[in-house]
């Protein structure tokens, strides 16, 4: 290490501001260099002289007087708060605690606003929305799809066209055409099998209607839910003799339905028409090679009873 560098660092050495390795190097250098050792002695002497001017404490009187003066000044000083304290709930609570008048005011304003709102609603004074786009009724509907978005050129106004789905309810007798139409629609509701079962149950009571029978046949052939298909079998039972399409749907279910319960129900459904050629052909096929033993036996029983009658 050069003497110049060492002498520049002697001040840092005496104030304890050197890292261990630098201090070690300088201390080693001082052992061998008389010029730097003289400089080191001079620095130490200066340090001792400067330290002889004591770091004095302020007098107790001065401190007390300063505290008192500050205490008085704080009474008239506003504390500026950072933006985050606007949202600080503890500050709000403290404000409420120390400001009962403010708390009472908020309560009165809230009560008045609530009363006025109820008055408006009860007297049908709902004003149109200032935007003129979404009215209160449509605001309760859920948005089904956005069909178009366009912006007026040169402005920040945007026009959005959308479809809404709004929940409504209605009531009436089973003879009401509107109710029947809704039930037929419900029978094909693909979302909720429970709704299909309920509607099927009600529709079976009015199976004389060709539209209802159509819906039941459709359900027996295509509905994914076996419970719904069972209901359709029940509903179609009384028409199997007179309607060939019902008979065909029953045979189809008997042969191909994935659910064994539906197939067994179809056997009972077709019992009145077991003499029919297509039905007998189906029973023969099942009696000889169906994988389900019960269906084989039932089919054989149907064929045997028919033979006895003959």
């Amino acid at each position, binding site marked *: 290490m050069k003497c110049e560098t060492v002498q*520049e660092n002697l*001040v*840092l*050495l*005496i*104030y*304890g*501001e050197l890292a261990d390795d630098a*201090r070690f190097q300088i*201390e080693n250098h001082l052992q061998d260099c008389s010029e730097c050792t003289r400089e080191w002695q*001079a*620095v130490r002497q*200066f*340090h001792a*002289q*400067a*330290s*002889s*001017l*004591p*770091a*004095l*404490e*302020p*007098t107790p009187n*001065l*401190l007390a*007087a*300063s*505290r008192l*003066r*500050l*205490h008085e*000044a*704080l009474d008239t*000083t*506003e*504390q*500026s*708060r*950072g933006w985050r*304290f606007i949202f*600080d709930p*503890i*500050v709000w609570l*403290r404000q409420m605690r120390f400001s009962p008048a403010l708390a009472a005011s908020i309560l009165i304003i809230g009560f008045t606003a609530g009363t006025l709102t109820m008055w408006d609603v009860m007297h049908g004074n709902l004003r149109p929305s200032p935007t003129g786009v979404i009215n209160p009724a449509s605001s309760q509907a859920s948005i089904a799809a956005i069909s178009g978005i366009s912006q007026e050129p040169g402005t920040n106004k945007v026009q959005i066209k959308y479809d809404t789905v709004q929940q409504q309810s209605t009531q009436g007798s089973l003879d009401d055409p509107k109710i029947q139409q809704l039930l037929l629609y419900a029978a094909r509701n693909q979302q909720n099998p429970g709704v299909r079962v309920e509607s099927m149950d009600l529709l079976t009571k009015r199976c004389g209607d060709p539209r209802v029978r159509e819906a039941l046949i459709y359900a027996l052939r295509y509905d994914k839910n076996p419970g719904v298909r069972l209901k359709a079998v029940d509903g179609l039972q009384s028409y199997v003799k007179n309607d060939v399409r019902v008979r065909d749907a029953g045979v189809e279910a008997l042969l191909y339905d994935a659910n064994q319960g539906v197939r067994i129900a179809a056997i009972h459904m077709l019992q009145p028409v077991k003499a029919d050629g297509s039905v007998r052909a189906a029973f023969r096929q099942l009696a000889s090679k169906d994988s389900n033993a019960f269906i084989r036996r039932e089919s054989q029983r149907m064929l045997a009873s028919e033979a006895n009658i003959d």
Partner: protein
Amino acid sequence: MPAEMVLHLRVGARVHQHTGFAGELEGESGPLATPPMRGQMVSQALSRLDDSVLIREAQRGNRAAFEELVRQYDQAVLRLALRLTASEHDAQDIYQEAFLKAYRSLGNFRFECSFYTWIYRIVTNLCLDHLRKKKVRKEDAGVVVNDEGSEYSLLDQVEDERSGANPERDLMRRELGKKIGLALKRLTPRERTVFELKHYQGLKLRTIGEMLETTEETAKNTLFRATQKLRGALAEMR
């Protein structure tokens, strides 16, 4: 001293004496300065913890919490202001202005540095402004103007345990004090402040750099220049 005892004493000091900075003060200065003891470090951590609770309370408008913070640091603040301005009146003004400024802007304190660094930064800036405005002053660092305008020596306020036993030594100390006071007047306000913070307040150069919003390297260079000037001035006075 066992570490636990140091801890106990430091915590006690916060309550009864409010001696102020428990932060990055050096244990002692000199080439063989010992590193801070474990107990001291624990007390520093406790001090920071206590401060942050008090600061948050004060930020929410709790005046008592702010006054507790003031009592912890105000003696050190007043001492620094008194030494740099050499006037009780000016020191009191700086004390007042520093804490009012801290109170007003405490809501913006982001805990990016310790509270003592923050308040010391305010005080040193006020002192620097004061020193720049009053470059030429009659009194030296060893003589203080009290509220009545009359001068008295700071050295008169010190009780030397050997005072009276050796009047000659006492006189020599007074002479040396005057010389150092005159030498300090030759420094620029910034050099004067850095030397004061390092030599008399015992702060780390890194902390001094933070307070003066500069780098540690700049603080080192300023300290080096200050000591060179002071040595030169004292040599001339022999």
